[in-house]
């Protein structure tokens, strides 16, 4: 099952490599990974999506907690949460395609953030499925380049991941 594991870690050199290293060492997979400092710049927030059985996920969270520089770990998928991924996608846009792409972008509530005579660059935010669906809708043949941020997530309501 796909899980979103989110953690706070010390914003120190090498901390990220410990987390990434743990996944490869113990044969866990990483689907997506995002990391950046939080409002407290001594802490980074790292979000990883992974796939595994309940037992594997339990081990992943325990092993992550064991890392000295990991301060807190939460499996967001255990509760109600919001998840978002950002995509920048460069599409071939000439002739009749231009209007068609524009319409699709509007339907997906994306924005065209850069334009040339032959290319649209589109920004799209949403759950990963929505980004997949957009690529499918515009058709792979028109896609020139895709950049995805990986998933960020946060729990709904009062629950927070903080010190």
């Amino acid at each position, binding site marked *: 099952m796909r899980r979103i594991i989110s953690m706070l*870690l*010390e914003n120190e*050199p*090498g901390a990220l*490599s*410990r987390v990434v*290293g743990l996944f490869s*060492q113990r044969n866990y997979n990483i689907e997506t990974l995002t990391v950046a400092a939080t409002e407290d710049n001594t802490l980074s927030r790292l979000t990883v999506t992974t796939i595994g059985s309940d*037992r594997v996920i*339990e*081990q992943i969270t*325990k*092993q992550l*907690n*064991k890392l*000295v*520089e*990991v*301060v807190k770990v939460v499996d967001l998928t255990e509760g109600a949460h919001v998840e978002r991924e950002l995509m920048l996608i460069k599409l071939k846009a000439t002739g009749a395609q231009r209007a068609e792409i524009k319409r699709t972008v509007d339907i997906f509530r994306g924005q065209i953030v850069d334009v040339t005579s032959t290319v649209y660059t589109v920004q799209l935010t949403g759950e990963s499925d929505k980004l997949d669906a957009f690529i499918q809708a515009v058709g792979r043949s028109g896609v020139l380049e895709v950049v995805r941020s990986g998933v960020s997530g946060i729990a709904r309501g009062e629950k927070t991941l903080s*010190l």
Partner: protein
Amino acid sequence: MLSGADMIVRFLQDEGIENIYGYPGGAALHIYDALFRQNKVKHILVRHEQAATHMADGYARATGKPGVVLVTSGPGATNTITGIATAYMDSIPMVVLCGQVASTLIGEDAFQETDMMGVSRPVVKHNLSVRHPREIPEILKKAFYLAQTGRPGPVVVDIPKDMTTPNERYEYIFPKKVKMRSYTPPSRGHAGQIKKAVDMMMAAKRPVIYAGGGVVMGDASPELAELAHLTNFPVTTTLMGIGCFPASDRQSLGWLGMHGSYESNMVMHHSDLILAVGARFDDRVTNATDKFCPGARIIHIDIDPASISKTIQADVPIVGPASSVLKDMIGIVKEAQEQPDPGAMKAWWKQIDEWRAYHGGRYRTDDSELIKPQQAIEMLCKITKGNAFVTSDVGQHQMFTAQYYKFEKPNHWINSGGLGTMGFGLPAAMGVKLNFPDEEVVCVTGEGSIQMNIQELSTCKQYDLPIKIINLNNQSLGMVRQWQDMNYEARHSQSYMQSLPDFMALARAYGHEGVTIRKPEELEEGLKKAFAMKDKLVFVDIYVDPHEHVYPMQVARGSMKDMWLSKTERV
């Protein structure tokens, strides 16, 4: 005001470190100079950095305190990796101080530069890098704190050369405490879980205590014995737990797993309750996990939550130090004055005694011309009265020693259980002997393993370490050969040793003594002769039956009770 190098040495003094083990080199020279200018911390010069880590490790296993290693950058640091991994797998406290090229050169492929932070990362509990000399006291304090608290383990400190420059001085204050918001080792077990566990124990009809290295390193042997005696539960230990419960105790079953005792494996398989303490259900214990102890409910006490339900699901997990959790259990049992059903326990013990009688640690004695390795270990145990510190290397001799040397005390059986590091035994014995000069320290090895760190005979001469090396010489890599006999139709691919050195001449070349034993009737006399040379390192080369196998041996992919008891008997 002290330089970084002086701070390191001063810190070691303040931390109460008496001996460190290492090898100098360019990036560590400021530190070595600081060592030279004092006499509180003694430095032991090994002949290969791997040996320094095993020496520190041997000391740590015998005392429970962290061993300290000092090496230079590049090859000095990478040579410690096997020793660090050995300590990591067995949760041994160790601090490894590594020189590094100057911070201005890092990343430029400088001479003797290795990314030791990256190289060591998968085999350390944690590693730390010094980025300013001022940080040195705090970083070292963290390193020692991390190494010995919670689940112990090795910690590497990477020290770029410019952090130790002699003429750059800073204020030094020995930090008394460490505070790390991201690291809080558990101090007590959960009271509710402990109560629940005791209730299960009292309701059990076929219980067993399965105790591991966590009991030894967690200094919980007295509590374990008290709880076992209170409840009358049988006790089996892991290979790492040997000694945490006295071998001579009526309730001791010996150790369990692949080459464990017949009765241990039978008791485990047929139990209805397993109380696991400081053990991690590793593959050499469980055999096939899907066939593991089908009728047993499991209480698992461990200081590391990640060890619980990793391979075998626990019914009652208890995270906490073994000694405190066991103490809490003892308190509840005493207060409630409860006992498990006496009728059921009587029947259980009757069954256990039958299993004991059936096997009884027997081995093949039909051939009187050749020394049986088991016989050699039994004689060693007799002559040292079971009191020696015994280190071992890895292979058949390790299993025979674990089976036939009867350990009564914890911290006396010292072997590389998790990583299985050949070459561990001799330097580990050196680390023990250096710190316990009045105790008998024995390294049981084989002609394969001993050659992996034989250069340390030179260190033994320099520091006058009169250990006894018992070389069970079967002229082959015995355990490899055994597997080839059993699984590869006796195709002995690369498992025999041609061109063995003359170990007697070799021992003498390094300034030591040697004794060769070739026949069973020479065994007692030869060993007595060796141990009579109190002040000498004696290399005892014992020619043993090369065809002997280690039994019992669990049948691959079977349950715990599926074992070979000899070359022909399978149960």
